[in-house]
């Protein structure tokens, strides 16, 4: 068959709806669902795996919140099964608390959100949106999933090794990380995850540059594709230094080198027998050189999804599409020169701190532009409050809170008081949890019909939204008060020993309650998700009456995606065009349709 992706099976896949995008040529079960090279199957594999990791990472956190709410009290239900070296008599040990913290962070960032946002949505939606038959390198695509999978398993296994999982924070600062147990498997796992991301990002960039459909010029690209494009560059250029740093830290742990180990270390009373002359700050630089761009990797795809959902549910074009595109690109570029705002307290001189404070303030501007554009898109709209739209709308103020609280952190003097307190925790959770996670939920509800040919239940969706929205705010809002009050993060006992925390401890109980309730409110989602695959309302190609290319393919799209060669005639968001027959004019419909 020819390269346009037309194929006989598509028709059949179109009528006979099934939840996995059925192929006509019958590869066996394994080639079809497990070792598939079809970007849609791989995308779904990524999404499911990532969601499970999200659930797991969240569970770790719910356990932690118990210890913070009721320090030293036996953990109910599961406490007894955690084992002597984690929670004797169900009472959590400090080392286990630190493991939970480090692994929660790692899992949520590297195994949850990024794989879902990039591996999941990127893989499934992006090729459809640009009218490609598949990714440019399908085999590479499959490989990147399985490498990710191995990395994930490595991380999970690390809980069961002697001494437990990594326990030096997701930031893994040496010397602690070099001498603390559990770190080796963490590093190995990270090397896998990074490799997977690199394979993925190469594939994404090539696909977007090379496989755009006829007529799909750069300024006609859906905003989501732009977000994925910039994200891929961030991954491509920011991840390798962390891979290098990981190798160096492995050398320090296994070969006894001292890249990050200065001379004259005395650990628990004994001088360390190492060559020394290393530099602990070197790790922090290499780590944050990745980890700051990484946080934009967490947010950009989310912004992309929100853009798509808002355009569709406001029934009007996105306001300032060009401004959005430029801001996203500029944001991506700037994110490479702000990283040391995580390191103000390491004794930075005036010059460099001035530099990083300035870049940090500058980078906040494009975010403001993006948020403003998305907000103004609502003006003159005809808003439909569908479940995806609810989550997308909630993203705006939530990201607003998260982003704005980044400003005092970005100014070194105010960071003196706020650094390493719950203020930081509050800041970034507002961006990643009610921000990114909500955007991802929006994406799931929005593209679920395309992936399965069925809609998710709106009622359960609404319950999921309102429950999560209220709880998540009760979880994170008090953290700002705690932070301003000077409550440190990463505290096994919540910092109950400190006089200045006395007033702040009570919030830990609310937060705990809210966090567990938040957990309960995920149940409607899980039920909705799996039941809709079987019993959800059937839909055809374009249930949301959307304009972008993915909606011209059957739901679910067959192998090769499109029944006829997709051609793009206009911009991505031609909604409510004056004089048009309907309130949406798809990009893929010829002038006189």
């Amino acid at each position, binding site marked *: 068959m020819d390269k346009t992706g037309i194929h006989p099976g598509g028709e059949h896949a179109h009528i006979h709806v099934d939840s996995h995008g059925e192929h006509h040529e019958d590869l066996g079960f394994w080639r079809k669902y497990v070792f598939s090279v079809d970007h849609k199957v791989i995308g779904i594999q990524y999404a499911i795996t990532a969601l499970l990791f999200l659930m797991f990472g969240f569970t770790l956190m719910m356990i932690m919140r118990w210890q913070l709410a009721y320090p030293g009290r036996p953990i109910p239900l599961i406490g007894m099964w955690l084992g002597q070296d984690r929670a004797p008599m169900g009472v959590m040990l400090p080392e286990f608390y630190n493991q939970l913290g480090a692994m929660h962070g790692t899992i949520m960032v590297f195994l949850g959100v990024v794989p879902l946002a990039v591996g999941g949505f990127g893989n499934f939606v992006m090729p459809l949106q640009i009218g490609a038959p598949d990714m440019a390198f399908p085999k590479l695509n499959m490989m990147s999933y399985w490498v990710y999978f191995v990395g994930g398993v490595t991380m999970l296994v690390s809980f069961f090794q002697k001494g437990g999982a990594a326990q030096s924070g997701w930031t893994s600062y040496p010397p602690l990380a070099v001498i603390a147990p559990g770190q080796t498997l963490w590093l190995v796992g990270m090397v896998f995850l990074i490799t997977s991301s690199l394979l993925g990002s*190469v594939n994404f960039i090539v696909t977007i540059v090379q496989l755009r459909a006829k007529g799909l010029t750069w300024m006609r690209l859906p905003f989501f594709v732009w977000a994925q494009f910039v994200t891929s560059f961030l991954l491509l250029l920011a991840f390798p230094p962390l891979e290098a740093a990981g190798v160096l830290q492995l050398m320090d742990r296994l070969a006894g080198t001292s*890249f990050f180990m200065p001379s004259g270390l005395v650990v628990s009373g004994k001088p360390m027998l190492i060559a020394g002359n290393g530099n602990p700050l070197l790790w922090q630089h290499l780590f944050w050189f990745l980890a700051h761009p990484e946080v934009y990797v967490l947010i950009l795809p989310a912004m992309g999804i929100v853009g798509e959902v808002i355009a569709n549910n406001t029934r009007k074009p996105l306001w300032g599409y060009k401004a959005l595109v430029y801001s996203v690109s500029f944001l991506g570029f700037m994110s490479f020169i702000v990283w040391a705002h995580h390191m103000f307290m390491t004794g930075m001189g005036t010059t460099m701190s001035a530099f990083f404070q300035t870049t940090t303030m500058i980078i906040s501007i494009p975010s403001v532009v993006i948020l403003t554009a998305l907000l103004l898109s609502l003006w003159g709209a005809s808003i439909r409050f569908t479940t995806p739209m609810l989550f997308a709308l909630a993203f705006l103020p939530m990201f607003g809170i998260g982003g704005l609280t980044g400003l005092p952190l970005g100014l070194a003097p105010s960071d003196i008081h706020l650094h390493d307190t719950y203020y930081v925790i509050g800041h970034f959770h507002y961006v990643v949890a009610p921000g990114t996670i909500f955007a991802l939920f929006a994406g799931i509800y929005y593209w679920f019909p395309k992936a399965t040919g069925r809609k998710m239940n709106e009622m359960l969706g609404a319950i999921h939204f309102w429950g999560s929205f209220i709880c998540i705010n009760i979880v994170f809002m008090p953290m700002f008060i705690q932070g301003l009050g000077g409550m440190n993060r990463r505290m096994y006992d919540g910092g109950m020993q400190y006089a200045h925390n006395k007033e702040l401890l009570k919030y830990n109980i609310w937060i705990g309650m809210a966090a567990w309730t938040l957990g309960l409110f995920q149940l409607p989602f899980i039920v909705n998700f799996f039941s809709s695959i079987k019993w959800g309302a059937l839909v055809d190609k374009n249930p949301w009456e959307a304009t972008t290319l993915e909606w011209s393919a059957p739901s679910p799209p067959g192998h090769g995606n499109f029944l006829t060669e997709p051609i793009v005639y206009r911009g991505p968001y031609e909604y409510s065009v004056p004089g048009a027959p309907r309130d949406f004019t798809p990009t893929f419909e010829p002038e006189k349709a």
Partner: protein
Amino acid sequence: MNIPYTIEERPDTGLTNGKLGIWLFLASEVMLFGALFSTYIILRVGAPEWPHGELNVWLGMANTFILIGSSVTMVMAWASLKLNDWGKHRIYLLATVLLSAAFLVNKYFEYAAHWTKGELPDHSTFLAIYFTLTGLHGLHILGGIVVMLYFLGPGAGLYKKSPEQFTNRIEYTGLYWHFVDLVWIFLFPVLYLL
């Protein structure tokens, strides 16, 4: 169903997927080695003193010649395909493999010399960075060898089916190989001479 622009170039970008792909991969490699060079700079500037003449310059120079040579044979292996001279291509590719093997053997002797003196990575910052950088570079060489052996052996069949595609793949392999050579061109002075 097959992917467009695997063989012919996309008109508006003038590129095949593989060409862009390999360059992007090399971009990430640049950042990988960049981080290691940055490490080198920071550790060296911070070090109280830095050893000189730790390594055998002559072995290092020999390896530099070997790698440069392998780069020439590699590019010739590709050029011969362009002139559809299959025989020459095989010879040049084989030569490249042999040269790279020679490089590794030579490197092994260098390593062995250190080990016998008990000079392991944990011995000093210099040796730590030396073993890490050259070790990682060595792995890249090894990877290159595997790929070339593939195109000498099982992969060669593709030439019958689709000469252009085979030629493209040899070109991509070449790009990778020249990059590995390029890294060494910097490693040599940085580690052996300075």
